[in-house]
């Protein structure tokens, strides 16, 4: 017999209305000097984020990489609009990834992907 949990798994959640969804910000950054791998960079950011802000707090940032826009030395991060400054502060702590020394330049902070692309 199926239990209640397995039935509810088949159900789809209704999409939240836009007013209740979390507001996002996109941050476009450039890594100067060295070319680095996206996965390594993501791993490093999350590691430092957990160390500085703690797991409980870091979850609220809803930090993600927009992978299709991460090309060459440019990376696009997505986060909650309330924690943009926290993410920028966090970037200040990243100085090397796998022995490669890097410098981070923040290009743009925007609410839409359209303006980030431009």
């Amino acid at each position, binding site marked *: 017999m199926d239990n209640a949990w397995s039935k509810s798994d088949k159900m789809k959640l209704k999409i939240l209305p836009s007013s209740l969804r979390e507001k996002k910000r996109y941050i476009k950054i450039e890594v100067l*000097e060295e070319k680095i791998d996206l996965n390594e960079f993501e791993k490093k950011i999350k590691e430092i984020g957990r160390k500085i802000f703690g797991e409980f707090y870091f979850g609220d940032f809803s930090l993600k990489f927009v992978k299709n826009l991460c090309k060459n030395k440019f990376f696009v991060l997505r986060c909650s609009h309330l924690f943009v*400054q926290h993410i*920028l*502060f966090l970037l*200040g702590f990243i100085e090397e990834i796998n022995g490669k020394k890097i*410098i981070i*330049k923040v290009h743009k*902070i925007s609410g839409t992907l359209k303006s980030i692309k431009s």
Partner: protein
Amino acid sequence: MKFSDIIFANDLDELKEMLEVGKKLGFKRFCQIFDFKKFNEKIEEEVKEIGKELEIDLCIGVEVKTFNQIETIRRKRKNFEFVIVRGGNVSLNRKALDTKEIDLIYNLPTKANSGFNHIMAKIARKNDVLIGINFRNLLEKNENERIKFIKALKLNLKLAKKYKAKIVVFSGAKNKFELKDPKILISFLVMNGFDLKEAKKCISKNLNEKIEENRKRLSEKWIMPGVRVIK
């Protein structure tokens, strides 16, 4: 906005590299600091030439660490464009803040306390001494030290803000990899309860005004505050 930064390059080649990267990051002015003992006129000329070559506004300053050096600076203030003090104990912090000839004091927290209180904040405001926060200090500390250091910094920022003492945040870089984007430096202040507008001032206007005032004072036309030769 004209962002400026304070750096501590060890040699001229490094300084050149740092200025090039700094330009890319969006800084318009740099203040290169030398140790008080090592500083001489020959170095000053060489650094000025680099500034002209790269077309960047470069200010040259000295770092003072002891009581005796502060007294020496007091007598020979006209030889230096910018003077900063590396604090670290309460009496030195107080001495530096009491001296009008000092432009900026940084590294205020000591091992036991924050090295700064409401009285010092009032004096800093009165004597127009900038309260500096070196981002490098934050990164170099180990985890346990960093916790105490951040706590002390938060208290210092709160006091400085309340008593309207001017604050400056700088990267304190020794090589090009230690330079930080202005937005990263601003974020540190915003996280500590500053408005974005106020935080931007701490990276640009506060330091720029001080440097420009010092340059006016060093010119031959300057006589005393409010009086200068026009023609």
